[in-house]
């Protein structure tokens, strides 16, 4: 393959665009032409998406339809609960829970005879012409991070280039100074999506100014929050968008080497990233003299090994260095002294996926989306007791109620909703009475939860809050690295108390003890794990004290703090 340069990319892009033009503009599909897309993300893949794709190709071929019907694999469409999913253009219909044996029928009735197989459609599309707008999961969504998910083949760099991929890197190398990149990010107001919400322009500036022989950029793809799959979906569905952003970050801070840190359990994501890295090298988008410029950048994958704490940036660095993943005290922050003691920028997958659109469309555009303090969109993995679980992206400022009811379709089985949980083991529970709060970093913090990486788990009237708190604390006990005492001992002591409550044997002074231990952990723990792990307990105590009171042996009225 010939390497691209800043001069040749535009022509190459036009050629690639012509190849998939009709998928991008379905109204040009005429005379029985069709674009068929099969989701191949972890969820669908695990239930036979591969066989469905193979079968589709075979049946279409056997009917002599190869010229008319174009079949591709893509990333996640969003409604994972209904997988495997096949989308067909120009009709814009989604076949759900497809089985390999259904393929003959779909091809014969729909592709040959032109009659959509109504009974296999997403319920909402049945009996209708079936347009994207009619699916409630897409209502109120805005796709920036997930822009290419479900649209292009994640294993094709050419398709990424066709949809304006690598234009941001081109723009930067074509004459933006690092200062201009940083100014654009400052104007955009992009904050970190990995949890804490630190301004990106600030982090990049610190690393740019820091002095070091080498500098590094790391993509945090550890996604330790159990019950969350936002980052893996981006990595599986659009790996080039993250590679492009890492190259831009490296150029800006003056790094020449980057690492993807991905959890080992994410086999499919790891494979797709490797494919993408190899393709980018082959086209001259990575390696020496990127796009023929003076800028050189190398990228490699490092695997996690099943330790939640390794999502924490200093523990992650220890892990890449080949050590046990235990955190170090900060400061110094990694932007000053990080990997191998060098200035290092660590950003989350979703944060990075925002970079190229910001460079392309400008900081003002991004800043026009969202709330006063939190700009842009947020991706959530909506799961639990909602009707439609899946992957969604909404502008900051959307309310929890809109997410649960308008997008998620309300609670399954006609039950009453009780609460949602955000922020995973570091987050808290938000009861139904606060569902009209617009979501941003500050509002979630003030409710005693946090944005976290984006797991949103919906709970109904059957779910016991004490059980949920116990579930998360058990998780933190298992995952505490053991280095500092407040976290190691505190979580364990809280668990002992909650186990008593689980057996309805809580003691009267237990509630006060819980508060005391939580307070000590918040103040005394070395890293974010111990500082935030009591949150699920504190928030359930605050909002659902009656559920704890019921489980005390001699009931009495509790005063919550």
């Amino acid at each position, binding site marked *: 393959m010939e390497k691209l340069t800043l001069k040749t990319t535009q022509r190459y892009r036009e050629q690639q665009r012509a190849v998939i033009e009709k998928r991008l503009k379905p109204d040009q599909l005429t005379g029985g032409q069709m674009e068929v897309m099969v989701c191949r993300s972890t969820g669908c893949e*695990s239930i036979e998406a591969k066989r469905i794709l193979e079968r589709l190709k075979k049946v279409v071929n056997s009917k002599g339809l190869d010229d008319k019907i174009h079949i591709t694999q893509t990333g996640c469409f969003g409604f994972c609960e209904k997988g495997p999913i096949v989308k067909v253009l120009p009709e814009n219909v989604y076949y759900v829970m497809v089985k390999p044996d259904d393929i003959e029928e779909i091809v014969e009735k729909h592709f040959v005879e032109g009659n959509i197989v109504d009974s296999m459609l997403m319920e909402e599309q049945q009996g209708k012409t079936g347009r994207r707008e009619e699916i409630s999961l897409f209502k109120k969504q805005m796709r920036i991070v997930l822009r290419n998910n479900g649209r292009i083949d994640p294993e094709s760099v050419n398709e990424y280039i066709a949809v304006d991929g690598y234009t941001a890197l081109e723009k930067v190398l074509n004459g933006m100074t690092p200062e201009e990149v940083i100014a654009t990010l400052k104007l955009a107001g992009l904050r970190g999506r990995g949890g804490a919400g630190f301004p990106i322009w600030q982090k990049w500036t610190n690393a740019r100014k820091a002095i070091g022989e080498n500098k590094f950029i790391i993509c945090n793809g550890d996604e330790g929050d159990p019950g969350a*799959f936002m980052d893996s979906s981006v990595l599986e569905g659009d790996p080039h968008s993250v590679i492009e952003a890492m190259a831009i970050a490296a150029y800006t801070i003056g790094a020449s080497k980057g690492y993807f840190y991905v959890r080992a359990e994410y086999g499919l994501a790891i494979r797709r990233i490797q494919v993408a890295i190899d393709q980018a090298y082959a086209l001259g988008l990575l390696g020496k003299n990127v796009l023929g410029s003076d800028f050189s950048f190398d990228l490699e994958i490092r695997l996690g090994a099943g330790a939640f704490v390794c999502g924490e940036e200093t523990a992650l660095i220890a892990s890449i260095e*080949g050590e046990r993943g235990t955190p170090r005290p900060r400061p110094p922050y990694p932007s000053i002294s990080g990997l191998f003691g060098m200035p290092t920028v660590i950003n989350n997958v979703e944060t990075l996926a925002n970079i190229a659109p910001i460079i392309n469309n400008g900081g003002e555009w991004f800043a026009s989306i969202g709330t006063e303090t939190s700009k842009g969109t947020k991706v959530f993995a909506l799961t639990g007791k909602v009707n439609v679980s899946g992957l969604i992206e909404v502008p900051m400022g959307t309310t929890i109620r809109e997410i649960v009811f308008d997008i998620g379709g309300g609670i399954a089985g006609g039950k009453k909703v009780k609460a949602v949980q955000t922020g995973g083991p570091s987050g808290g529970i938000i009861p139904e009475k606060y569902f009209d709060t617009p979501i941003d970093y500050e509002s979630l913090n003030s409710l005693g939860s946090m944005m976290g990486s984006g797991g949103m788990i919906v709970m109904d009237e059957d779910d016991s809050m004490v059980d949920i708190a116990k579930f998360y604390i058990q998780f933190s006990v298992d995952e505490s690295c053991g280095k500092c005492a407040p976290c190691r001992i505190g979580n364990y002591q809280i668990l002992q108390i909650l186990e008593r409550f689980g057996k309805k044997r809580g003691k009267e002074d237990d509630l006060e003890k819980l508060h005391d231990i939580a307070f000590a952990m918040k103040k005394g723990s070395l890293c974010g794990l111990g500082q935030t792990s009591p949150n699920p307990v504190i928030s359930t105590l605050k909002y659902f004290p009656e559920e704890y009171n019921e489980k005390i042996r001699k009931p009495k009225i509790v005063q919550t703090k």
Partner: protein
Amino acid sequence: METLHEEITDEIRAILDKWKPKEGNLIMILHGVQQRYGYVPWNISKFLASELSVPLARIFEVVTFYNFFNLEAPADYKISVCTGTACHLKGAPVLIQGLKKQLKISPKAQYTEDRKFKVEEVRCVGCCGLAPAMVINEEVYGRLKPEDIEPTLETIKIEETS
């Protein structure tokens, strides 16, 4: 259990050659080892220690810190039940109970007596939309109900005898 002695293959030497020059290579090497043997065998750890010129304790502190690495030979069938939040809410604990009962594994143990089956808990396998989920060897089973356990195990046993 007795410690097994595994052969040091060319594959392992190739992994060492690839990673030896790189900084912070130990975890990637261990991944290679586990992929080859299904666990990190004792004699291979000793071999790595001498090849990398590090104390054996350094290898063990890393292997034991990370959940992903195993020190015991794998069972023929590894059943990993997801106990991530989504799966927990949708009945993972009941699934585990059911599985262990069917396979006659006591609640605190993981292996069947003949070490053919292992039931372990993992945190989120990334298919939360399909909760509750479990993975048998590489295959994912989603949207499970407790009554699905028996037929699923039956199919495995039939496949094995056929």
